[in-house]
C-alpha cells in the first residue's frame, strides 16, 4: 500500500459520459431516424402505437434479464406465451366474466413454469440451455394438446382489454394504450426488484460467482428459481398483452425468446451472468423494435431485417467485450 492515506470514506461514484449504457444513444439515434423518415411518429398515435407494439417484448426482456443475470437462459418464454394465449382462449370460452379468474390462473401458470425450469436447473442440474429447450418443446406440445391443435375459443373483450384498449382523453398525449400502462407498471416493478431489493443483488451474485454466493449464505436455489419464475411471469403477462392485442393463434409466441435475449444483450446484460439491468433491457427492447420499425419504413424486406438483427447482435457483444478489455475490468 503505497498510496497516501485517503482522508475520508470513499465516496459514491459519479456519473460520466463513458458510463452511459450505449443502448440509450442507440435508441435516441433510431428514434430520430424514424421521426425524420416519418414525422407522424412524433404524434401520439405514432409513438403510442410504437410503445404498444414494443410492450410485450419489453416486458419479456425485463423478465429474461433476470435469468441471464443469474447466469442462465430462458428459451421457454415463447412457448409459454403460446400456452397462455391458447389456454386463455380455452378457459374463457368467450365468457366475459371468466377473465377475472383466467388471468390469475395464467399468471400462476407462468410462475409455475418458471418454477419447473428453475427446479430442473437447480435440482436435476441440467444446464438451463437444455432445460428450457426441453420445456420450450414440451409447452408447445402442451398448448397443442390442450387445444387439439387449434384454439377452441375466443378471447372475450374483457380479456383483450389489456392488450387492445386505449384510454382516451388523457392530457398531453390524448390517449394511452392500456398495454403501455401495463408496460410501465410491470417494468417498473421488475426494475425495482432488480435494483432496489436483496433479490436483485443476489441474482447478480449467483450469476457472478455461484460458489462464492453459496458460501456467503445466499439461498442460491431459491434465488435462481425466483429468477426463472419472474421470467415465466413476464412471459405470461406478455402473453396476455399479445392475446389482447391480436387475438388467438397457435404461434403467437414463436421466436419471442430469442428477441427477448437479443433485447437483453443489447441492453448490456452479460451472458453467463453477473451483469444485467432491467431499464437497459427495456432500452434494448425499444431499440430492437425501433430497428424493425425503421427497416419497415425504409421498405426493406424481411431478409435484410434478419441480417441486420444478426449483425447487431454480434456487434453489441463484440463492442461490450472490447469496452471491457479496454477498461481492464
Amino acid at each position, binding site marked *: 500500500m503505497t498510496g497516501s492515506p485517503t482522508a475520508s470514506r470513499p465516496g459514491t461514484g459519479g456519473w460520466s459520459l463513458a458510463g452511459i449504457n450505449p443502448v440509450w444513444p442507440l435508441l435516441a439515434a433510431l428514434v430520430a431516424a424514424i421521426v425524420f423518415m*416519418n414525422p*407522424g411518429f412524433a404524434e401520439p*398515435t*405514432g409513438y403510442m*402505437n410504437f410503445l404498444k*407494439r414494443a410492450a*410485450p417484448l419489453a416486458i419479456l426482456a425485463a423478465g429474461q434479464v433476470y435469468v441471464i443475470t443469474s447466469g442462465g437462459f430462458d428459451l421457454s418464454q*415463447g412457448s409459454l406465451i403460446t400456452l397462455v394465449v391458447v389456454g386463455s*382462449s380455452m378457459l374463457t370460452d368467450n365468457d366475459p366474466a371468466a377473465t377475472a379468474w383466467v388471468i390469475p390462473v395464467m399468471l400462476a401458470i407462468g410462475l409455475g413454469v418458471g418454477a419447473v425450469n428453475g427446479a430442473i436447473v437447480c435440482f436435476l442440474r441440467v444446464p438451463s440451455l437444455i432445460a428450457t429447450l426441453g420445456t420450450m418443446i414440451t409447452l408447445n406440445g402442451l398448448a397443442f394438446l390442450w*387445444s*387439439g*391443435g*387449434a*384454439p*377452441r*375459443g*375466443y378471447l372475450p373483450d374483457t380479456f383483450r382489454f389489456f392488450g*387492445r384498449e*386505449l384510454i382516451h382523453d388523457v392530457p398531453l398525449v390524448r390517449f394511452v394504450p392500456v398495454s403501455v400502462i401495463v408496460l410501465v407498471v410491470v417494468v417498473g416493478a421488475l426494475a425495482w426488484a432488480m435494483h432496489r431489493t436483496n433479490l436483485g443483488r443476489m441474482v447478480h451474485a449467483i450469476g457472478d460467482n455461484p460458489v462464492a454466493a453459496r458460501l456467503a449464505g445466499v439461498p442460491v436455489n431459491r434465488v435462481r428459481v425466483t429468477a426463472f419464475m419472474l421470467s415465466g411471469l413476464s412471459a405470461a403477462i406478455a402473453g396476455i398483452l*399479445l392475446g389482447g*392485442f*391480436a*387475438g*388467438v*393463434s*397457435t*404461434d*403467437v409466441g*414463436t*421466436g419471442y425468446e*430469442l*428477441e427477448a435475449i437479443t433485447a437483453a444483450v443489447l441492453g448490456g446484460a452479460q451472458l453467463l451472468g453477473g451483469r444485467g439491468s432491467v431499464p437497459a433491457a427495456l432500452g434494448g427492447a425499444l431499440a430492437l423494435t425501433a430497428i424493425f420499425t425503421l427497416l*419497415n419504413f425504409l421498405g426493406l*424486406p*424481411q*431478409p435484410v*431485417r*434478419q441480417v441486420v438483427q444478426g449483425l447487431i447482435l454480434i456487434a453489441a457483444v463484440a463492442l461490450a467485450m472490447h469496452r471491457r478489455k479496454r477498461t481492464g475490468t
Partner: protein
Amino acid sequence: MKLILSAAGALSLSLAPAQAQNFNDPEEFAKQQEQLQAQPNGPEGEPWLQYIGDGMVETGDLGIEAPATVCFSNAGVNNPWRVVGFTNMTEELANHQSIGEFIHVDAEGSDDKQIADIDDLLAGGNCDVMIVSPNTTAALTPAVEQACESMPVIVFDRGVNTDCPVTYVHPVGGYGFGIEGAEFIAGELDEGDNVLMLRILPGVDVLETRYSAGRRILDEAGLNVVGAEFTDGDNARTKSIVEDYLMRGDIDAVWMDAGATAVAAIEAFEDSGYEIPVFVGEDQQDFLRKWEEEGMTAIAPTYPTYQWRTAVIAAARVIEGEALPGPEWVLPQPAITEETLAEYVNPAMPPLHYAMCGCETMETYPEAWGGN
C-alpha cells in the same frame, strides 16, 4: 429457432421468380378460372364426392382384401387447417368397413422426416394402401415413387411430380383462390382505389399461386396495390403492418392469401378508428362471425378441408375395387359469399374452424371439431 423458420425466405416477389417452379403460369391460371365456373359431376350437396372433369381410373385388378390397412404419411398437423382436415379424415374412417387398420405418421413439417416415415411404413407397416399428403412436391416425389412400387398410393393437397399414384385429390387450386378474392374486390372498387395485399410466407407453392393470380387481376382492374406484405401468419404482426399502412393513407380493400390473420387485420381498422373496407378472408369461423356482426363487404374463398375426407373415400374405393376420378380428382372450390354466409357461420364452432369442411352432417359433429 422458429423465428428463423418462420422468417425463412421472406424476400418479396421481386427476387422470387421461381427457379424450380413457376408460380405465374397463364395456362394453369386459365384452366383454374374455367374450373371455378365448371359444373361438377357427382352428388349435389356433397362436394367432397364431386369432381370436375370426366377422367376415371379403374382399380378392380388390385386385389386388396378388405378390411385392409391404410397408412397415412402426413406432412403435419401444424396449423388449424390441417387439424380440421385431419379430424375430417379420422371421422370419415368410421364410414368405411373396408378399412381395417389406419396407421398415421406425422412428419411435423419436415421433408426429411416424411421421407424417413415413408421408408418406415414400407419397411414394416404392412400397409395395403398408402395416402400421402406431401410436405413439398419435389422432395417427396422419390419417396412416393418408391411407395408406388409396392402398393396403390393416393396423394392429396400438394401433388408430386409423378403420375404413379392412383389419383391426386385436390380442389381447384391456388389460382382459383386468388381469382375469386381479387375479382370480388375488382367488382366492388373503382379504378385507382387502394388495395393492401397481405401474405403469409413466400415460397409456399399453394400461397404463391394465390398471390400471382390475385395480383394479376387487381392490376388488370387498374387498382392501386399499395403494398404486398408478409405477415408470417402472425396476428400481432398483421395488425402492426395494417396500422402502419393506415398512418400513411387510406385503404379501400384488403386482399389476403389466407384468412388466419384476417380478424387481426380488421381490428387494425377498428382500433385506428377507420371504416372496415372491402375484405377478402377465408372460411375460418372467426372471420365469418366478424363479417356477419359488422355487416362487412367481404368474400371468403376457400381451400376446402373436405378434401381430407375425399382422400379416405378414394382409399376405400381402391380397396373395394371401384372406379374413382383420376389421375386427378379435382374437387369443387366454392367461395363463401354474402348470400351463403348464413349457412356457414356457426358460433358453436371454434374461431379457427374452417367452415367449408363438409363435416356438418357427420355423426360426431360438432364435438369432434371442438364445437359445443
